[in-house]
């Protein structure tokens, strides 16, 4: 008795230390909510990852409702507040918010950045233009001043800001004033994004009823908080059901403490291992962690109810089931799809640790069934008698359901459908997108050198004139040299003489044009300033020997990109879909190989009972496929749940086929209840990815319940 107590205390102390270290590590290296990190590493996701590295994607938008004086005052105060925040680098609100560096860049390079009409003008057209200028100054209309530097408008000004202005202020037309802040945290930096979220929302709390605040960073912050809350609620339900199983069915409360401790230790070690191997662990893995880890309880129930602990027996069917499960899960670890690979590795490690603890360490902790529990076998004995449906019926029904479902199921490649649908942020994003040009499509332009990049961007601008890119704000050396030569060969001296003559005849004072085109006689060379260009919203990124920048264009012009191999449009939805389709193809082939391997293992272990055991694999799979055929589209998470149910099916099939006693049936029913607690309960989640697992599990479990009525020749 004393040694049992010491063993148990020692077990709990070791587990407590492991849990404490694990929690410390997980707090220090938290899971990621970044969806790109869980997608296959292919061209599509690499392009998206690169795009997210651009500072220009790090923005925060604030809309102040209305155009009244009060709104403008509020917007001005909000601008001052934002400028004080640590995570905010700069705020753009009106035309005067252009830094001296930018002003000097634009002024110094004005003659390079503007479009220049180098066609010589006839005396007649100079005369005509000057008369028109005089007329426009004198006729009724808004005040017009004469541009004495370029009176003939030979240079056309460049577009430097791609947004809507009103009275010099940035606005969302019809809605109100708008501020755009450049923020420091990148979208993938969850912690920094959360700090920014708290900081900005805290600072603007008093205005919250009058403003709309949006940043792409908010998605990961709000969604992960929602998912965390969702998981907490689900975990409470899971725990309540588990309590019920241990208190009322197993009638061993101490066992509950030790089994939950084992599951927690296994889950934490598995999470740390996944983090160590993959570099990042997805928040979705944490979300499913509780459920996946609880699969291991099957082993405990089977060993405990079979009284293997009391008799110090090694339970072969449980071991075979465990090996088949591990084989299936480990086959998925090699798939090039981080989410599935992470989930499979997590499941494989947590199950292995739990199995070893339950099968070997628990013997020393001396957990024995209550003698009275033999009585509870009575109800299962009655159920045993109801096992009358021949296995061949389940086989035929399974094949029929598969034949019906397979041609009808369709895949939903939109990964965003898996994430929590944050309607509030989606509405805010749409509001700014519609009006600030955010609905333009970003285009990634890459080259080996800066000069090549600028030449490419100039080609992009020529092909898509309504685009906005680095070509609007800078020029290549090649273009700068052409401009210099054009200006040098243009006879400005003669032009100035004509301006004086015809200017006076048009009514202008003598000497009005004395300064015109003066700066052009000693034109300084073009001076590139990446910092100034970045402040105007166009950034250059160097990575792996390649230089990239982002341009923007209308979706309608996408056809004009043909032949421009260096320009890759970034349509997140499509890139993610491409990635999802590639992932599906991979998953399908792995799935097929893994399924065949599992079928073989089950057949080899169960021999003459093979059909009985295989039905535990086929019938739940066929039922889930049938359910999927009624959905608009199934997701990768449905497939993952399908695979999990196959694993459960193998365990149950082998255990019932090999054991085929009342105690085996009892263990499997208890296990089904905990599976419902771990996975079926996910049906109540509001996160689509989690819900998908829940609905598949429920259908799979229903099929397993029906399989309890399958006739077993050995049992009969």
């Amino acid at each position, binding site marked *: 008795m004393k040694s049992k107590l010491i063993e148990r205390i020692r077990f709990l102390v070791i587990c407590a230390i492991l849990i404490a270290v694990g929690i410390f590590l997980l707090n220090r290296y938290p899971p990621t909510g970044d969806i790109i990190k869980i997608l296959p590493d292919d061209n599509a996701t690499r392009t998206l990852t690169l795009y997210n590295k651009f500072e220009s994607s790090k923005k925060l938008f604030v809309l102040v409702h209305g155009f009244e004086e009060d709104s403008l005052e509020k917007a001005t105060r909000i601008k001052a507040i934002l400028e004080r925040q640590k995570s905010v680098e700069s705020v753009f609100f009106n035309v005067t918010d252009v830094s001296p560096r930018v002003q000097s860049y634009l002024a110094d390079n004005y003659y390079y950045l503007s479009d220049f009409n180098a066609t010589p003008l006839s005396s007649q057209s100079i005369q005509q233009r000057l008369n028109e200028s005089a007329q426009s100054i004198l006729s009724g209309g*808004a005040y017009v001043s004469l541009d004495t530097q370029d009176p003939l408008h030979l240079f056309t000004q460049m577009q430097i800001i791609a947004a809507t202005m*009103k009275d010099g202020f940035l606005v969302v037309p019809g809605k109100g004033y708008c501020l755009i802040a450049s923020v420091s945290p990148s979208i993938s930096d969850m912690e920094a994004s959360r700090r920014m979220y708290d900081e900005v929302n805290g600072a603007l709390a008093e205005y919250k009823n009058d403003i709309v605040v949006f940043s792409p960073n908010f998605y990961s912050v709000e969604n992960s908080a929602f998912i965390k809350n969702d998981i907490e609620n689900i975990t409470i339900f899971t725990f309540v059901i588990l309590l019920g199983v241990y208190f009322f069915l197993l009638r061993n409360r101490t066992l509950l403490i030790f089994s939950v401790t084992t599951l927690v230790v296994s889950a934490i070690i598995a999470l740390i291992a996944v983090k160590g191997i993959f570099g990042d662990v997805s928040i979705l893995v944490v979300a499913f962690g509780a459920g996946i880890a609880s699969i291991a309880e099957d082993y405990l129930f089977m060993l405990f109810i079979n009284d293997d602990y009391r008799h110090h027996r090694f339970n072969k069917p449980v071991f075979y089931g465990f090996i088949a499960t591990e084989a299936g899960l480990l086959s998925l670890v090699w798939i090039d799809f981080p989410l599935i690979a992470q989930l499979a590795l997590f499941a494989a490690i947590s199950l292995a640790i739990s199995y070893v603890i339950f099968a070997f360490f628990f013997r020393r902790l001396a957990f024995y069934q209550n003698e009275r529990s033999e009585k509870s076998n009575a109800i299962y004995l009655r159920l045993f008698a109801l096992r009358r449906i021949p296995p061949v019926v389940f086989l035929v029904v399974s094949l029929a359901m598969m034949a019906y479902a397979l041609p009808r199921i369709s895949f939903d490649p939109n990964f965003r459908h898996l994430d929590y649908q944050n309607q509030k942020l989606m509405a805010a994003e749409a509001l700014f997108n519609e009006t600030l040009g955010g609905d333009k499509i970003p285009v990634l332009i890459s080259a080996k050198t800066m000069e090549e990049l600028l030449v490419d961007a100039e080609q992009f601008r020529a092909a898509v004139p309504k685009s906005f890119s680095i070509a609007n704000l800078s020029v290549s050396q090649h273009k700068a040299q052409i401009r210099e030569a054009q200006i040098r060969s243009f006879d400005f001296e003669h032009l100035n003489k004509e301006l004086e003559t015809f200017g006076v005849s048009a009514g202008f004072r003598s000497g009005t044009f004395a300064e015109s085109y003066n700066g052009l006689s000693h034109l300084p060379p073009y001076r590139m300033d990446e910092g100034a260009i970045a402040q105007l919203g166009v950034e250059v990124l160097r990575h792996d020997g390649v230089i990239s920048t982002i341009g923007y264009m209308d979706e309608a012009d996408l056809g004009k990109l043909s032949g421009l191999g260096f320009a890759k449009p970034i349509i997140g939805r499509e890139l993610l879909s491409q990635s999802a389709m590639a992932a599906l193809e991979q998953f399908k082939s792995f799935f097929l190989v893994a399924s065949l391997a599992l079928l073989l293992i089950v057949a080899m272990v169960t021999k003459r009972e093979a059909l009985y055991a295989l039905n535990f694999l086929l019938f739940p799979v066929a039922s889930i496929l049938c359910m999927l055929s009624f959905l608009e589209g199934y997701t990768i998470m449905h497939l993952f749940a399908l695979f999990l149910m196959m694993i459960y099916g193998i365990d149950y099939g082998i255990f019932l086929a090999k054991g085929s006693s009342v105690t085996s049936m009892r263990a499997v029913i208890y296990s089904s209840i905990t599976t419902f607690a771990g996975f079926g309960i996910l049906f109540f989640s509001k996160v689509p990815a989690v819900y998908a697992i829940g609905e598949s599990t429920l259908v799979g479990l229903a099929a397993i319940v029906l399989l309890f009525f399958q006739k077993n020749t050995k049992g009969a």
Partner: protein
Amino acid sequence: MYAKDEFTEKRYSYVLDRTTLYKGSVTMSEDSTVVRYVQPDRKVLTQTGKQLIVEDIDAHTTQTIDLSDRIDMVLYFSFMRSAYRKDMSGLKTYFEVEREKNIMTLLPKKQVKRAIEKIVMTMNGDEIQKILINFTNRDTIEIETH
């Protein structure tokens, strides 16, 4: 919020050494400013967002101007709106506002300095009686409201 006022505007162009007298009225609405000139030409200017539509009543012509790179026109309309709404907050971004008795002086900030030297407004309480704008190119505009 609506406002309507008639005004007389005297513009002096230094480069042409000519003074022109304009007469008209201003109407403000939530999103737009409409200025109707009746003298010397009949023209209607409608500014909405970054767009200005100039309608010549007699010549039956309409011209649309993109204001996004016309800081002079943007300031002109910003000034019109602020003056007729008796609300100087919009102008505070561009100007330092000083008031001494019934004279309000607006000194330009940042790059507005390049276009405007100063603005002097003669007030009667909250009402603006006269506005004098001195441009750096030596042009002046004098507006009197009725």
